[in-house]
């Protein structure tokens, strides 16, 4: 009944989720029972050590289910990329492998995508997670991401998203960037929207997140800001960062000149102010040079098809 190219690919990364595989697949199949077009489910086993792969293989006896087993545990972002790279559908939906997302939301997400979007993000309603460890940090992180990137998506951390294949071929995710998919998509000119989705408490297995990631998210945000704003002109970014350093240098310099003219040479003989001023000037110079290095790096990558991300076919 299903021909070679499915219209929809559902991608679920799994890490030590052996108990969740079977219910997840059943749930997705049930949710897509009346879906009019053909679909496939891609289960990505991210180097699990608990028998997840055996469950995936058992599930893959259904022709609509495909399994990928990664050689090592590479993290959620890379596992999702593995699924995306192997997905055949023109529309791709990602969701968590822990049953916290509800597959019954998939048809609605895809319908929304068909209204003319490239990315539809789920927005978890009545989130069923621990307040202090999960919800508060997530709320803060989302506010910060919105503030810094200007992309108005309420829930960046929700894995339930629908993508047009066209978009996924334009962004390459690495490290832990799955959180920044909306911002990265916006930076290549995608049309983005969000819609409310259901959220359930974890039934089996353990959460793979901890509080320590909050700090990492902060650092990653700096990177994201730099990359999305200055990806084609890093010298400008570094040059702007050098401005405060120049101003500090000028301030120290003028304090020194002032004391030289007003208090006489014996008091101004101390080298601290001019020294501090020169250090600040050194920083400015250094940042400028770093900006040049970044330009060199950028230039050496030019001429690459990946470098023209901003033309979209008008539909």
């Amino acid at each position, binding site marked *: 009944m299903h021909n070679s190219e499915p219209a929809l690919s559902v991608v679920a990364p799994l890490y030590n989720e052996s108990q969740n595989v079977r219910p997840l697949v059943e749930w997705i199949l049930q949710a897509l029972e009346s879906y009019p077009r053909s679909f496939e489910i891609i289960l990505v086993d991210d180097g699990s050590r608990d028998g997840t792969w055996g469950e995936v293989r058992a599930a893959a006896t259904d022709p609509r289910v495909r399994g990928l087993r990664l050689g*090592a545990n*590479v993290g959620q972002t890379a596992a999702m990329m593995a699924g995306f790279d192997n997905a055949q559908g023109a529309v791709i939906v990602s969701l968590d492998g822990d049953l916290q997302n509800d597959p019954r939301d998939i048809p609605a997400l895809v319908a929304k995508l068909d209204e003319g979007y490239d990315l539809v993000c789920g927005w978890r309603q009545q989130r069923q997670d621990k307040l202090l460890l999960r919800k508060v940090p997530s709320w803060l992180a989302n506010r910060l991401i919105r503030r810094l990137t200007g992309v108005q998506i309420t829930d960046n951390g929700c894995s339930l998203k629908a993508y047009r294949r066209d978009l996924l071929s334009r962004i*390459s995710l690495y490290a832990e960037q799955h959180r920044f998919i909306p911002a990265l998509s916006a930076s290549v000119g995608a049309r983005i929207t969000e819609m409310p989705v259901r959220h359930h408490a974890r039934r089996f297995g353990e959460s793979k997140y901890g509080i320590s990631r909050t700090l990492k998210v902060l650092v990653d945000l700096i990177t994201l800001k*730099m990359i999305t704003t200055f990806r084609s002109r890093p010298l400008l970014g570094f040059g702007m960062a050098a401005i405060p350093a120049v101003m500090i240098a000028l301030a120290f310099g003028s304090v020194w000149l002032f004391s030289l003219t007003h208090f006489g040479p014996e008091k101004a003989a101390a080298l601290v102010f001019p020294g501090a001023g020169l250090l*600040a000037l050194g920083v400015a110079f250094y940042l400028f040079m770093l900006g040049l290095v*970044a330009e060199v*790096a950028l230039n050496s990558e030019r001429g690459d098809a990946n470098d023209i991300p901003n033309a979209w076919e008008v539909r």
Partner: protein
Amino acid sequence: MSAQGTLMEPTSDTANAVTAAGGRLTSVVIPVVERADDLLSVYHAFARELDARPEEYEFLFIFDGRFVPPAELVKLAQENASVRLLRFARPFGETAALRLGIEKSRGDVILTLPAYFQVEPEGIRLLLEAVSAGADMVVASRSPRLDSWLNRLQSRAFQGIVGGVSEQRFHDMACGVRAMRRNVAEELPLYGDLHRFIPALALREGFRVEEVSVPQHPSDARTRVYGPGVYLRRLLDIGAFFFLAKFTEKPLRFFGLVGSVFLGAGTVLSAVLLIQRVDGQGIANRPALLLAVLFLALGVQLMGLGLVGEIIVHLRSPHRRAYRVRERA
């Protein structure tokens, strides 16, 4: 390959005949660097073991810089097409020698051996069997160790530091006896002095790495003490590996961490000085202000470096795949 080697072999046509004769081919890659026993006896001892196996085999000796191929070996290579000698014009080190050997070899399984007797020759059977059984890479672990306590302590320390980064513990990472499939060998990021970390690198690339115990050769058991320069280089290697393993995808996490320590120290010191100045104490003639500005400057520089690293990683990301698919269903 930046380090170009000269192929000292009559014609490549005769060597190709090896593959044409039988199906599978094992390439033995022997880098001749630092230490070498009588190479002819090394060849005969290991060739005897390989004769017992069904696969064809070839030997590649890579001579680094100051090592000159002995006359008997050159004669052997001229007579026997399955022995090939390669030579670097300058010393490039073991990692480069291994890469050259891998590149010039033709086998579907590659066995690396040191140029001296590190393990008993019959040990390589275990390695080759494990590769046929499905492992991507099999490394030998010398056991029982016959070395002096000093050498064992050295390798314990090395193992301990590296073990903290790697997902799987290896008991004898420094052992040069390893068997691997060709695709594994070709995908290893081998440069600098990273050959010491080959099992950990393969593991990181998502390959299946196994370890088998192989009896140590008695002649390998002499006590070796190295100069301080060697230890310093080893330490830097470990540092490089550590950084590679943890931060290649996210350099700013490393530079940002160190940088924010400096920024924090600079900010605190500046604040203290500001309070003192408001309080009426002069700060113009005290070096503390210089220190505060120096800290801030260092912090900014480290952050900047990390950002440049991030830009490079970002630019490279479309060319790089962070995962390897081991199996499909």
